[in-house]
């Protein structure tokens, strides 16, 4: 079981490593969007501190969206998706592996770089830490929910726009709670409740979305 999970993750990481520009594009997009805001708003530290959680989270959401269309598209185009569907291993497990690999090359770098970016917003150290933790818990949820959208829109014309319409509404709870955790910390409150909620969402998504993706993929190849 774990062997096949590791095999799929290794495969997708290897492919991502060979197409580094795709990965760097997503990260660069995130960095640029987050950086543009303080430049546009000006050096008003109080305002920047207030908007920081929302800006970083919205940028993370959009960056995750950007990379979604590629999640299954190349496998669909070269026939590897058929082979995934015909694997004797459970398909939800393979899907979980793909989502995990997607997170490792998009969500994880965003999380790490967010610590540096929060300096631009003059975030206190504890708020910056909570921001990173909330992204670490929240971005995997984005990858998992996004995988459902990517699987549903596979092979459709204008799939990119459709993914946004399908997936962005489902991202709203993650956005509210993720940004809420940082705001609470900045206001001197305890963020533990928010983070636990995010962790709960992550578990919920990790257990349920692979089944939805598997079903959607089977429909997409017909």
């Amino acid at each position, binding site marked *: 079981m774990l*062997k*096949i999970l590791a*095999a*799929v993750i*290794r*495969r997708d990481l*290897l*492919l991502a490593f*060979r*197409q580094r520009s795709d990965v760097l594009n997503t990260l660069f997009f995130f960095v640029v969007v987050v950086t543009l805001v303080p430049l546009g708003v000006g050096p008003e530290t109080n305002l920047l501190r207030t908007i920081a959680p929302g800006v970083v989270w919205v940028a993370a959401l959009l960056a995750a969206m950007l990379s979604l269309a590629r999640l299954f598209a*190349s496998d669909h*185009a*070269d*026939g*590897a998706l*058929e*082979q*995934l*569907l*015909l*694997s*004797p*291993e*459970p398909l939800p497990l*393979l899907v979980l592996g793909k989502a995990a690999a997607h997170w490792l090359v998009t969500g994880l770098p965003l999380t790490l770089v967010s610590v540096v970016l929060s300096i631009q917003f003059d975030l206190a150290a504890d708020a910056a830490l909570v921001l990173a933790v909330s992204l670490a818990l929240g971005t995997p949820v984005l990858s998992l929910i996004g995988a459902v959208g990517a699987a549903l829109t596979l092979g459709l014309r204008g799939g990119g726009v459709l993914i946004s319409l399908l997936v962005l509404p489902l991202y709203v709870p993650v956005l509210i709670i993720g940004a809420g955790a940082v705001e609470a910390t900045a206001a001197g409150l305890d963020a533990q409740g928010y983070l636990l909620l995010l962790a709960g969402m992550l578990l919920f998504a990790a257990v349920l979305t692979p089944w939805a993706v598997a079903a959607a993929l089977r429909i997409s*190849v*017909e």
Partner: protein
Amino acid sequence: MLEAAGLECVRGERTLFSRLDFRVEPGTLLRVAGPNGTGKTSLLKLVCGLLSPAAGEIRWQGENIRRLHEEYRRHLLYLGHLPAVKDDLTVLENLHVACAVAGRPVTGAAARAALAELGLDGFEDTHARFLSQGQRRRIGLARLFVSGAARLWVLDEPFTALDVHGVARLTALVGSHVSAGNMVMLTTHQEAAIAAPRTEVVELGPRRPPAC
């Protein structure tokens, strides 16, 4: 044993074939014949479970493949039109990855031997994007040499883009797989003489008399 009973395939608005029955016993080579657009590839995809039939069912050892799921796919090896070859991976990595996803991991030595069988030795560390169409095809076909427990091979136009030597190598391999008591189902436009204990043909086509 693989059986199809009363199969009907509808793509879009068109009925490609209906009331199709056939049986594949161990040690049988089943050739699917017919002009372009008569549903050969669709039939193979039905057999793999990638498409679902509009009517009828496909049974493996007497059980509908819809209910068998992973248990059936363990015995199945499908090579489709698309070679499932990743441009950005090397030849050796492609084979390793394909086998790992299929749940039949191979050792480095076995993978190299399989590639050598198809004349890809010396190309192991070449990226697939630099290979010719026929060579890319061979990467997919190399999986047949390390197919392990797969008893049923479903091959869609396996001879496409292969040279004379490649065709001969593949014919011999398919023949020996069938002779060992396994099953092969394939489509081809070339008349390849495959030495098999038993060869059957399913003829698809617009003028096929209704089987009733």
